């Protein structure tokens, strides 16, 4: 198990600095106590500062997936939910279960463009629009400011933008939240900050969302909270990890293209790859390399591969080259 190379969950392959791990360990010495609300406030302050919004807009939670679920539970009543397909799967699954009506807009290769008109056409009734931006799994920025403004103009629409990969893409709507009460941005420390095991997510909530969350209060796990505070005290450590990841992403992409795979431009820490080799995800799994097979929810022949350490990426590349060779004589193009 431990030898597996995990390129299936878009984690940061590098552990955070030792100060953060020590902070988490310190949290363990207080296990019989609930977290101190003052320390929760401190984290909110740090996050508000980091996101450049006032603290009242920041809502903490264990993992951003949990916040997305909460939003669907609370705001899908009396509204149709509009999402793109494919999208972060747990959110889709939750909407499928709880929404009175779910409308999914199919993204199509090779551009994966989301037409502004489609959303405005579909929002002629009260709607909750949830877009992961950049989108998982295409890695593409789907909506720009102009589009967001157009959607937000309709006061019957709530727009939730999932910015799980913001630190990689650099694109955010966080600064629009104070002006637009019907906008919220979801973020996480699980990705770029390398804290997936700590599970800290936060919502930058527009005014219309705040009421519903006024009673929403989570005592974060002590260790997670300490790790997050330490991380936010000096977030500069993420910079070189992000740079290396982006550099590796471009290298892996070029290598795959050389073999003949179609790889799409990404603004995240993962790549979307198209392949004609059937069951490639399973062949990689046989070789203890885990990638994400998207064919259950979308078009056949697409996998999503997270960017690992240079060494992990090399192992992935050499294995995929071998698999490709085996299939080349079977008549499959990459």
């Amino acid at each position: 198990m431990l030898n597996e190379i995990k390129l299936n969950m878009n984690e940061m392959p590098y552990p955070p600095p030792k100060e953060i791990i020590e902070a988490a360990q310190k949290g363990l010495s207080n296990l019989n106590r609930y977290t101190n609300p003052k320390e929760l406030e401190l984290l909110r302050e740090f996050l508000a500062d980091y996101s450049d919004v006032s603290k009242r807009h920041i809502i903490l939670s264990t993992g951003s997936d949990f916040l997305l679920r909460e939003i669907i539970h609370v705001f899908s009543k009396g509204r149709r939910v509009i999402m793109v397909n494919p999208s972060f799967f747990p959110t889709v699954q939750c909407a499928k279960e709880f929404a009175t009506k779910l409308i999914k807009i199919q993204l199509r290769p090779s551009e994966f463009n989301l037409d502004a008109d489609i959303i405005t056409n579909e929002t002629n009734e009260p709607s909750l629009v949830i877009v992961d931006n950049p989108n998982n799994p295409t890695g593409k920025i789907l909506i720009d400011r102009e589009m967001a403004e157009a959607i937000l103009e309709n006061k019957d629409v709530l727009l939730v933008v999932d910015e799980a990969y913001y630190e990689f893409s650099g694109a955010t709507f966080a600064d629009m939240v104070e002006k637009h009460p019907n906008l919220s941005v979801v973020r996480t420390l699980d990705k770029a900050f390398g804290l997936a095991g700590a599970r800290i997510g936060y919502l930058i909530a527009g005014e219309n969302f705040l009421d519903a969350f006024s009673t929403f209060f989570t005592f974060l796990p002590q260790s997670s909270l300490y790790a997050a505070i330490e991380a936010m005290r000096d977030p500069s450590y993420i910079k070189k990890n992000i740079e290396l990841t982006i550099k590796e992403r471009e290298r892996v992409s070029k290598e795959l293209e050389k073999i003949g795979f179609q790889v799409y431009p990404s603004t995240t820490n993962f790549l979307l790859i198209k392949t004609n080799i059937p069951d490639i995800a399973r062949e990689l799994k046989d070789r203890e390399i885990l990638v994400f097979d998207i064919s259950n929810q979308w078009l056949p022949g697409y996998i999503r591969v997270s960017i690992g350490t240079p060494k992990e990426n090399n192992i992935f590349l050499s294995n995929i080259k071998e698999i490709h060779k085996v299939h080349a004589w079977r008549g499959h193009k990459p």
Partner: protein
Amino acid sequence: MEPLAKNYVGREYSMKKIGLIVNPIAGMGGSVGLKGTDGEIYKKALRLGAKAVTPKRTKELLSYIKSRKEISLVVAPGKMGETYVRKFDIAFKLIGQTPKETSAEDTKRIIGKMLNGGIELLVFVGGDGTARDVYDAVDSKIPVVAVPSGVKIFSSVFAVSARAAAEMVDAFIEGTDLTEEEVLDIDENAFRNNRLASKLYGYLIVPNVKKLLQAGKEASSIDKSSVDSKNEIARYIVKHMDKETLYLLGPGTTLKAIANDMGLPKTLLGVDAIYDNRLVGIDLNEKGILKLLKKYKSKKIMVTPIGGNGFIFGRGSKQFTPEVIRIIGRENIILVGTYGKISKLECLRVDTGNFEIDKLLSGYIRVVVGEKEEMVMEVRC
């Protein structure tokens, strides 16, 4: 009596009898840049030095089947089956004869014998053309497992790979529910000219294997069987049907599910008409449809896209012709399809042969994929 094969071990009574038939020439066009091996193309492929692909697929299939000990195969001699089976420790029995140059007729004839011999499942290796031959011979008598070995395969009846096919065989042995999947009639000549002309040819029954769960929190699975999804769509549609509207139901199992939910029969490949919970037309052609359209004021078409290529209105449809579509109007077209089918389509397609109608149909449109769920798809021409 058929002769017993050398590794026949006499334990057949406790084992499942499974037919295996291989189309030795399927998929040969691909290696030399041709599409399909219909008719004369096969000879051209040979001249160009095409190599057989089916042997490898068949070997892969056999090597991945886990329940080998519980299976007794019935195979045709030589390259239509026997050759590959001999290399594995698997009980088998020979049936029929394999000529030097094999044809569709051989496939059908041998399957006929297998059916008479009491096989419970038929596994075949080939392409869309082979699937049509199998459909002609098997129809819905027994379930099948289709192993893809063609260049470009469109029929949804096929497993994604030989390995996935092996899992379907194992699932069948263990016991699983069944579902219907499409067999398409691809016009290979048109396809070679870069036009995709296909229509629904029929349905074969396959073991309904749910996709394997993937590890991790993004674990994804098609959570409902396709049969359940169709029934869910049917319930939703029927609940919202208007008594004073004429509904023209196109081909396919999803539309059949809708009629069945109302307690009405439905032709699988034809267009049937419903008004006020009654059947008012069966297996209609254009003339029959136009007659009904004159009679009723409010009218709607219900269709499901063809799996794999997304055609909603294709050239050569004897029923929903450009004239019919013009009268009905875009806003009166109701599209339905399971999420499993629709999410796998890049877009929907129309090719009615009438440019204006194609233009009218293009743009974004909604497809009902569940009781509470719709997908917005682009229609292209």
